[in-house]
């Protein structure tokens, strides 16, 4: 966990006069799970969008695997190996499960010189991925609009596990999931991290953060208000950082952990 995968240096983002981010710096190592915490409007989602190429930072630099990194679009970030699961679901409900799973990277085969969608192979891949994650969906040819919120979120989670990449960003991934599915989702995150993939998870639920994360990064009013290993802190201390009761840049809480 020593080699840094992504390093953010003094990232800022302005919307006109409004400063959403005022200089955020932190880093993620390979195989590390970071919980990105903060109150509503603290700038977490903005930060995720900057890393995933949906937004351009106003200033600051990022480096990914040691190289300068400034994605202009989600497809660029994706090509670099960054997968994102957004808070509001990123599914096209008018097409089926298979089409959503392979959205933007459909498999094709050549028929008389024309690239034709290879539906059978794609369906087989999806069936395998769903089965290994224990997600049950009646038919993979069902349009997503007919599926429940939990099933939809399961598709998104399975999608990122399947594609892997090098870094995964999860923006409130469990909002629509039940207890059992959430538990499985958290296990999935640990499995993904065990493969050496970096994971950033945004969550409001402190318990989830403590279950899954190696490190807590707290954003408050557009700056990093705390960056501590999970083992060296506790829920009260983290809540203190989120609400601002603790001083900015507070370190490990005395007497916890080691």
């Amino acid at each position, binding site marked *: 966990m020593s080699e840094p995968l992504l390093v953010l240096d003094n990232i800022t983002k302005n919307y006109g006069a409004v400063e959403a981010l005022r200089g955020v710096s932190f880093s993620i190592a390979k195989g590390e799970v970071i919980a990105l915490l903060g109150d509503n409007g603290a700038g977490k989602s903005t930060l995720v969008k900057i890393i995933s190429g949906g937004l351009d930072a106003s200033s600051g630099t990022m480096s990914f695997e040691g190289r300068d990194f400034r994605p202009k679009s989600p497809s660029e970030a994706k090509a670099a190996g960054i997968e994102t699961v957004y808070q509001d679901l990123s599914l*096209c*409900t008018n097409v089926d499960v298979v089409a959503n799973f392979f959205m*933007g990277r459909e498999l094709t085969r050549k028929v008389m010189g024309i690239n034709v969608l290879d539906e059978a192979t794609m369906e087989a891949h999806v069936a395998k991925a769903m089965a290994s994650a224990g997600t049950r969906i009646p038919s993979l040819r069902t349009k997503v609009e007919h599926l429940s919120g939990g099933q939809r979120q399961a598709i998104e989670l399975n999608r990122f596990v399947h594609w892997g990449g090098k870094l995964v960003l999860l923006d409130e991934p469990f909002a629509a999931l039940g207890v059992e599915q959430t538990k499985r989702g958290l296990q999935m995150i640990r499995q993904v991290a065990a493969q050496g993939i970096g994971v950033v998870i945004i969550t409001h639920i402190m318990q989830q953060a403590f279950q899954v994360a190696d490190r807590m990064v707290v954003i408050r009013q557009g700056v990093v208000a705390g960056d501590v290993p999970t083992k060296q802190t506790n829920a009260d201390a983290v809540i203190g950082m989120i609400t601002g009761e603790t001083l900015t840049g507070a370190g490990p809480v005395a007497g916890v952990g080691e």
Partner: protein
Amino acid sequence: MQPRQRRSLEFVLDNLVWFMLLAVLAIFSATIPNYFQPGIFANIIEQSSVLGVMSIGLALVIIAGHMDLSVESVAALSAMATGILFASSGIGMGITFTPGWLVVPASLLTGMAVGAVIGALNGYLVIKVKMNAFIVTLSSFIWVRGLVVAISGGRSAQNLADEVRFLAIQRFLGIPLTAYIAILCFVGFSFMMAKTRFGRHLLMIGGNEAAAFRAGIKVDKVLMIAFILSGTIAALAGWLLAIRTSGATANLGTGMLFNAFAAVVIGGVSLKGGVGALPGVYAGVLLLSSINTAINLMGLPPHYTQVIHGLLVLAAVLLDTLKQTIRKKLA
């Protein structure tokens, strides 16, 4: 509801327009004398060719969640360009080639290039400048028609070369070659929508543009291609129209936009985007022209056609809403 019942209900909803077409044909055949004969059906298919081709382009853009009101005027401009350059009487310049058949690709490419340019302009304004597609293409609808009137001076061009006219005159199984061009377009673009990545991306952009963008689909590029295709296909429709009428007049094709719209909506394409398939659109076009033929056969004054078309558009939008309500209940 049982899954099987649900599936059959969905099948009916997805293919509603084909059932409607069969029902309408059956009713007309039973009640209108002389309706049920091969010549009439061949005529219906022939009449569907120009409108059918135009509807394809419109449908592509609407499925992608946008709008192209300019198709009718683009078709007229393409027809006028063909007429002015290659027709021999009126304002036609009567350009000829040796060998003579070269006029076919030359006129086709000229027309389609005109359409592609206007489609690209529409696309640029909608996608890059981020203007509303309805307004952008409404403006094109007006200025392109204005351009047609301006370059023709309100006059017409007649007499296209026989080598082009051949396509409208020569029949195979009682149907002129132009109708086969339309059918070929439907087959080709239906295949594109159902089986290629581009078609899949277009459908997904219509369903959820943000999700498609986040998934790494180059939304701007796909939409731009859709607008260019719409313009080019409309121009192809205009070219077919010029061939059929052996020239072009300044008001050629007036009113086709609303018929194309009616066909697309009746064909099961939702104006909200992301829903619909091209075979249904062809059925919608056939349905409209079956009704036209019936009106002609019954000897009703032609003004009634307009009344009925207007009501049909209304009925189609109502049907669209109704289908969505049923689908919501299914979910």
